[in-house]
C-alpha cells in the first residue's frame, strides 16, 4: 500500500536464479515419497518451493476429505449436501494437493479432467433420458428399495444418479481449473523466465 511496494513490483524482472529442475518422471523414488502413488503425486518441487507441513497435512487430509465429500453426496437428500456441495468439497481436496506441490493433482488417477466432467454430464443426461425407455416423461424419478438382509433395507432414489453426475462434473471442472489456471499459468510463468513455485500468490512474497 506504499509507494515502495509499487516501485519494487514494477522493477521486478526475472529473478536471477534458474527455475528449479524437476526430478525425472518415473525416475528412482525418493526416500520421502509415499509408496502409494495416489497419496501424493510424484512430481513435487525440490527445495525452496516445498512446505513439508502442508505436504503431510495434504497426505492425511486428502482421503479423509474425499470420504467426507462422498458422505455429502449421499446425505444430500436428507440434509445439507448433495452433488454440487460434495463435488466442490472433493474439488477442494484436489486444490489442497495442488497447493501442497502437485503439478497435476488428477494425474495419478490417469483420467483427464475433461473426461471426468464429460462423464458427469453424460451420466446426468442419460439419467434424464432413461425414463423415456420405460415410457415415462423425461426426468421423472423413481424410488427403489434394496433389501440388505439383516441390515434392513436402503431406499435409493433414482435422482441420486443425477447427483452423481453433478458430483463428477464438478470434480472435473475443478481439476480442469487447476490444470489451466494452476499448472498452466505456472508453466507460462516458467516459460517466461519467472520463478513461481506452485501455490504462491504473485507479488505477495
Amino acid at each position, binding site marked *: *500500500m506504499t509507494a515502495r*511496494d*509499487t516501485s519494487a*513490483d514494477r522493477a521486478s524482472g526475472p529473478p536471477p536464479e534458474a527455475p528449479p529442475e524437476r526430478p525425472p*518422471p*518415473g525416475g528412482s523414488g525418493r526416500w520421502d515419497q509415499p509408496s502409494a502413488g495416489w497419496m501424493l503425486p510424484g512430481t513435487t518441487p525440490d527445495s525452496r518451493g516445498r512446505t513439508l507441513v502442508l505436504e503431510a497435512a495434504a497426505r492425511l487430509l486428502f482421503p479423509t476429505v474425499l470420504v467426507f465429500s462422498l458422505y455429502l453426496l449421499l446425505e*444430500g*437428500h*436428507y*440434509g*445439507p*449436501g*448433495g452433488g*454440487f*456441495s460434495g463435488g*466442490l*468439497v472433493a*474439488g*477442494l481436496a484436489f*486444490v489442497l494437493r495442488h497447493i501442497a506441490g502437485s503439478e497435476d493433482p488428477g494425474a495419478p488417477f490417469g483420467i483427464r*479432467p475433461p473426461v471426468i*466432467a*464429460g462423464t*458427469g*454430464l453424460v451420466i*446426468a*443426461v442419460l439419467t*434424464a433420458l432413461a425414463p423415456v425407455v420405460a415410457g415415462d416423461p423425461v*426426468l421423472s*424419478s423413481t*424410488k427403489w428399495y434394496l433389501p440388505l438382509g439383516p441390515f434392513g433395507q436402503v*431406499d435409493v*432414489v433414482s*435422482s*441420486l444418479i*443425477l*447427483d452423481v*453426475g*453433478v458430483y463428477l*462434473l*464438478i470434480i*472435473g*471442472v475443478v481439476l*480442469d*481449473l487447476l*490444470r*489451466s*489456471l494452476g499448472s*498452466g*499459468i*505456472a*508453466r*507460462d*510463468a516458467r*516459460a517466461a523466465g519467472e520463478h513461481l513455485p506452485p501455490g*504462491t*500468490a*504473485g*507479488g*505477495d512474497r
Partner: protein
Amino acid sequence: MLAVVAAHLGLALCLPALARYDRRLAFGAGAALLAATLVWALTQWSEALGPGVTEVVAWAPELGLSLSLRMDALALAMIVLVSGVGALIMVYAAWYFGPRSRDAPRSAALLVTFAGTMLGLVLADDLLTLYVFWELTSLASFLLVGQGGRYRENRRAAVQALVVTVSGGLAMLLGIVLLGGLSGTYAIPEITAAAHAGTLAPDRPLALAAALGLILLGALTKSAQVPFHPWLPYAMAAPTPISAYLHAASMVKAGVVLVARLGPAFAAFGVWWVPVTVLGCVTMVLGGWRALRQTDLKRLLAFGTVSQLGFLMVLFGTGSRVAALAGIAMLLAHGLFKAPLFMVVGAIDKACGTRDLRELCGLGRRRRGLAVLSTLAALSMAGLPPMLGFVGKEAAYEAFLLEGGVRGGLVLAVLVGGSLLTAAYTARFLWGAFSTKGSQPTGGDPVPPGLSGPAWLCALAGLAAGFAAPTVQELAAAYARPLPALGDPGAAQYTLALWHGVGPALLLSVVAVAGGLLLHRSGIPGSLHVRFPAPSAQRGYEAVVTGLERTAIAVTGRLQIGSLPVYLGCILAVLVALPGTMLLVGGAMPGNQQLFHSVMQVPVGLMVVVAALALTRARRRFTAVLLVGAVGYGIGGLFVIDGAPDLALAQFLVETLTLVAFVFVLRRLPAHFAEPDAGRRVRAPKVVTAACGGLLVAGMAVVLSGARTLPPSTTAPFVANAPEAGATNLISAILVDFRALDTIGEITVLLICAAGTAGLVLATRYDRRTDDARTGETVVNSGAGVPEHEKEVLG
C-alpha cells in the same frame, strides 16, 4: 411416413462405412431406398389424391409441437422429383464419383440425408415440422456444396448459400411463430381453414401482414428469387450430381413448395400474391436474360433454374385454379428436364475436360446419343410439344388468358417474354454444347452408360409424362381443388392436355419459341450485355457481408479494448439503464422494512459492510480479493443465521474455490492496481458507475423482496411432494427432482466455462508425450513452438 424419413437418416449413418468397402455399392443402396420410397408413395396414389394420408406424432404437446406429416397431391408430385429423380441421380453419382473418389463416402451419406430431410419437408403438415426440415435441408446443402472444404470456391459458395437461406429461414421462423400466435395453431389445414373462413386475426391485419411477409422471405431466399438469387449460380461449384439434385430437383423447390402449400390459404391476401408475383416475374426475366450471357454450361443452366423458379412462383402465387394446374405440371417438367441437362453437362465435363461453350466443338457429331438426349430434355425446357413442359406452358398462358384484366395481361406478357428468353437460352445451350464452332474438335471419350443412362430415363420420363397428361391432370386437379376458378366457367373446366387445338395459347407458344430462336440467332444479347451490364446482386451480397464485418470490427474495436473497467462499466451501464429504469418506473418501496430480524445479523452485516467499504480503499489486488472473499463468507454467514444451511454450504465452498482461482490468476498480474494518484477524470466515472450499480442492486433487492407478501404458490406443492421424491431435504429435492432440467442446464454451463478457460489458457501449450523407441523413456515436449505443435496448428 415418419418411418420412411427415419429410414433415410438411418441409412445415411451406415453409408460412410459401406462406402469405404465399396463406393458404388453405397450409392446403389441409396438409390434403392429412394426408388423404394417412390414406389411406396405411388402405391398410396388414390388415397393421397383423395383425403390425404396423415400421421401425427406428439413431440412436445405442452408447447403445441407435433410432428405432423401428410401425403397429398403436392407432396406426391414432389416425391416423384425428390425420390424418383433422386434415385436416378444417385446412380449417376456412383459413376460420376468413380470407385476411388475421396468425396464419395461423404457425398453418398449426405445425399441420402438430404433426400430424407427433403422428404420430411414436402410431407410436413405443421409449420414447425416444416421449419425443422427446412433448416435441415439448408445444413445438408451447405455440407454438400462445401464438399470437404478443400477449395476456396466451394467454401465460399457453401457459406453464401447457407447465409442467404438460413437468414431467410430465421425470418421465416419469426413469421411462423407470429402466425401461430395469431391463429392459435401451427397445423397447416387449420390455418388454411381459418383463412378461408376469414377468422384469421381479422382485427390484426398488420401483424398478419408481417407474419406472411416474413414467411415469404424464407420462401424467396430458398428458391433464389431476386434479389437473393446469386447464391444458386455460385453453388454450381459443387460436383454435378449435387447440382443436379439440389438445384434441379429438390432444395431450391422448397420455397416453391412452401408458396404452393400456403397458397390456397393466402393467395387472396395482397401481401401474399403481390410480392410473389412481382418478384417471380422479375426473377423469370432476369434469370433468363443472365443465362444468355453465360459461357459455362452449368452456370447457364443455373440461371435457367433461377428463371424457372420465378415462373413457378408466379404460377403458385396467384392462386387461381388453372395457374395451379400449370404449376404442378411445370414443377414436374422442370425436375424432369433440368436434371438430365445437368447430368449431360457433367458427362460432357468428364468427357471433354471443359464445360465452356467457347471451347466445346463438334461434340454433336461425335456423341450423337448425348445430343439426342439433350435435345429431348431441351424441347421440354423450351416448351415444345409433345413434352410435359409444353403442356405446362400452354396451361400457364391459358390461366392468365382466362383471368384477363390488368394483372392477367401484365403477367401474361411477362410469361411470354420469359418463355422467349427460355427458348433463346435453350438454343444457346444446345448450340454451345454440340455445334461445330471452331476447327479443333474437343473430347471424344465415350460416355459410360452409368452417366448417360439415368439422364435418358429422366428425359424419357418427361416425354412420357407429356403423353400421360391426363394422369398429371389427375394429380394437379387434386391439388387445385380448393382453389377458386375466379368466376370463369372456362377455368373451372380446364384440364391439362397435350393438344388443346389451335388457339391463343398455342399462338403465344409459337411466338415465344420462334422469338427465342431468332433472339439467339441474331446475337443481340451479346452486344446488349456489353452495352448495358445488368446490376449484379452478387455485389450487393458482398457489400452486405463486408459491411457487417466492418461494423463488427468497428464495434469490437471500440468496446473490446482490453480494459476490465470499460467492460464492467458497459455491463453496469446496461444494468442501470434497463432494469434500473424499470425499477424507477414500476417499483414500489415496501413500507415495513425492519432493521434486522435477529441480533446475530448485526455483527455479520457490519462485517460485510466494513469489508465492502475497505475494498474500495484497497490498492493491492490480493487484499481486494481477500476482502471480496470476506464479503462472500459474511453473506454465507447470513444464510446460516437465516436457516439455510444448504445455501450457506454452497456459498462457503464456492467462495473458497473462487478465492483459490483468483489467487492462481493473480500470480500473473501486477500486485497493485493502477497508480493511486490517477487523475480525477479517470476515477470520477468509475466511482459514479460503481455507486449507481451498487445502489441499483441494493434497491432491487429491497423492492423485489417487497413485491412478495406470501410464500410463492409453487412452494406448497414442492413441500408436499418432497417425501414422494425420496428427500427430506427440500432444496435437494428441488435441485435434482422438481427442477432437474435447470440443474442439467446449469452444469452444462459450468462444463462450457471450464472448457473455455482451459482452451484460453492452454491454447498454445500442451504436452505431447511420446515413447522414445531407443531409450524406452517417455519424452515430453511442452508448449508452443515445438515442431509437432506447429504441424498440428498449421495442418
